[in-house]
């Protein structure tokens, strides 16, 4: 308990520092925010243009697709906001030896890595996601009973954890191959597949993004549950189980990713040789 308190206290100190730095460069912050925001907006515009031509896409309406799209942004944004520094492990910190400093301090290494940076650009994603989800709720296409609302928050947290686990897993390769950025990038970009109903993909791709790099459980599958559709246990069945599986997967992937990371630390070879 004392340890947890100490970690929380330190996290607060680090985050406060971080905000001070952001406040010193407000313009940069706003531009990054706008960049991410704008990127998401073009995705929505694309859907609008497509639905000028067709009324439904495989049984999904424009409004429903927009909800899926927006919902997908929230777990992604949360993970992006809090654990962005994992990217640096994959690209830079291990290969140039800056990872040394985490090894020299008497604290958990993973904690140090993520505590070092908040990524304000992520607010762009969170903003778009929240706007779209609220918009969908007002349109009345989302199920909004207590159970669904409760599970909504469970789901976005589990989803963020899945994101973090996938990032950590691939970033940890850096301990073996020095620079794992490209691998991480491949895995991360696969998330784009899950912004749309996964039924439209070929079987192999669907399997991959459902069970191997399970982004479908971050976005499309839970989103269709909140839309009152059963995307997973057969058409027409709206099943709570999908959120349960999401949580299970989040837990499992986290354990795998964290042990690979720990193993990686134990074989870390600092640079400069």
């Amino acid at each position, binding site marked *: 308990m004392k340890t947890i308190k100490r970690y929380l206290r330190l996290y607060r100190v680090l985050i406060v520092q971080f905000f001070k730095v952001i406040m010193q460069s407000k313009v940069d912050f706003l531009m990054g925010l706008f960049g991410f925001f704008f*990127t998401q907006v073009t995705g929505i515009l*694309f859907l609008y243009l497509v639905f000028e031509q067709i009324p439904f896409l495989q049984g999904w309406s424009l409004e429903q697709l927009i909800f899926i799209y927006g919902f997908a942004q929230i777990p992604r944004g949360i993970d992006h906001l809090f654990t962005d520094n994992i990217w640096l492990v994959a690209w830079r910190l291990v290969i140039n030896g800056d990872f040394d400093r985490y090894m020299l301090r008497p604290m958990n290494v993973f904690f140090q890595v993520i505590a070092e940076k908040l990524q304000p650009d992520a607010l762009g994603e969170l903003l778009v996601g929240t706007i779209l989800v609220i918009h969908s709720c007002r349109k009345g296409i989302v199920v909004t009973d207590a159970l669904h609302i409760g599970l909504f928050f469970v789901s976005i947290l589990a989803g963020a954890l899945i994101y973090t686990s996938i990032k950590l897993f691939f970033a940890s390769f850096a301990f073996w191959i020095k620079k794992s950025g490209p691998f991480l990038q491949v895995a991360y970009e696969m998330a784009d597949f899950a912004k749309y*109903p996964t039924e439209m993909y070929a079987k192999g791709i669907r399997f991959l993004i459902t069970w191997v790099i399970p982004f479908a459980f971050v976005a499309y599958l839970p989103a269709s549950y909140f839309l009152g559709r059963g995307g997973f246990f057969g058409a027409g069945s709206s099943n709570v189980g999908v959120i349960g599986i999401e949580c299970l997967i989040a837990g499992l992937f986290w354990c795998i990713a964290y042990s690979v990371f720990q193993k990686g630390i134990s074989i870390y070879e600092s640079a400069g040789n």
Partner: protein
Amino acid sequence: MRRKLRIYVPFALNELKTQLSYRGAFYLFILISTFSSFISYFLWMAIYGSTDKVMLGGLTRNEMVVYIFMVYVTRSIVCISISDWVSEDVVKGTVAMNLIKPMDYRLSLISRALGRSGYQFLVPSVFIWIGLELYKVNVLGMQVTGIWNILLYFISSIMSFLIFVLFDFCVGMIAFFTNYIFGLLMVKEALLRFLTGELIPLSFFPECVQRIFDFLPFSSMVYTPVMIYLGKYNTAELGFVLARQAVWVVLLYLLGSLIWKKVTTRLVVLGG
């Protein structure tokens, strides 16, 4: 001319070499780069599957397949983001080093972009292109694209390449005025994906918006060569779109020179 080549060719070769030396990354970035095309492909197939219409935005389902993958090929040889390099040079402060050397900074960037373009054409665009033609003939039952269209496509693509890098050079100049160009470059990326027709054929936009696009250089970057490849233009239109590309090359070249002049005077005054 020979001397010029000796100065600028190493930029192109060096870029090729750097790209090749990233072993693992090499294969993986190819893989990543195809993701959005495959997402597009499945999405469009689902879209055509959801309607009885034969044509959407003036393209049949089969033409859309060609469009998606030719966008990939075209983008990989045309869209070389030199503004990233400019901002890198500015941030690292190496741009001053480039100024004191007896060479043209823009030309060295374009040479480097040419190297990247050649590399991206070889791996993997040329294979995707061949694969697409085989798929077209064997699966979709379409004709092989005629040699005339291919030739015109390459002429148009070369101009597209010039339009893109000349335009992007101007964008890169912003790096001299702000410290944080990352956000801007992201906006540029998203905007271009939309305006060049990469995300969705420009024919899907409402009429009035399309009229506006006619007066912007973006449609000349990707959309024009791909539509040429698809054989969507008649002779008169062909002449027009190619001429329009040529005009943009000249205009952007002049604009870039002008901005560069302003920037370098400023650099000299402020001491970089």
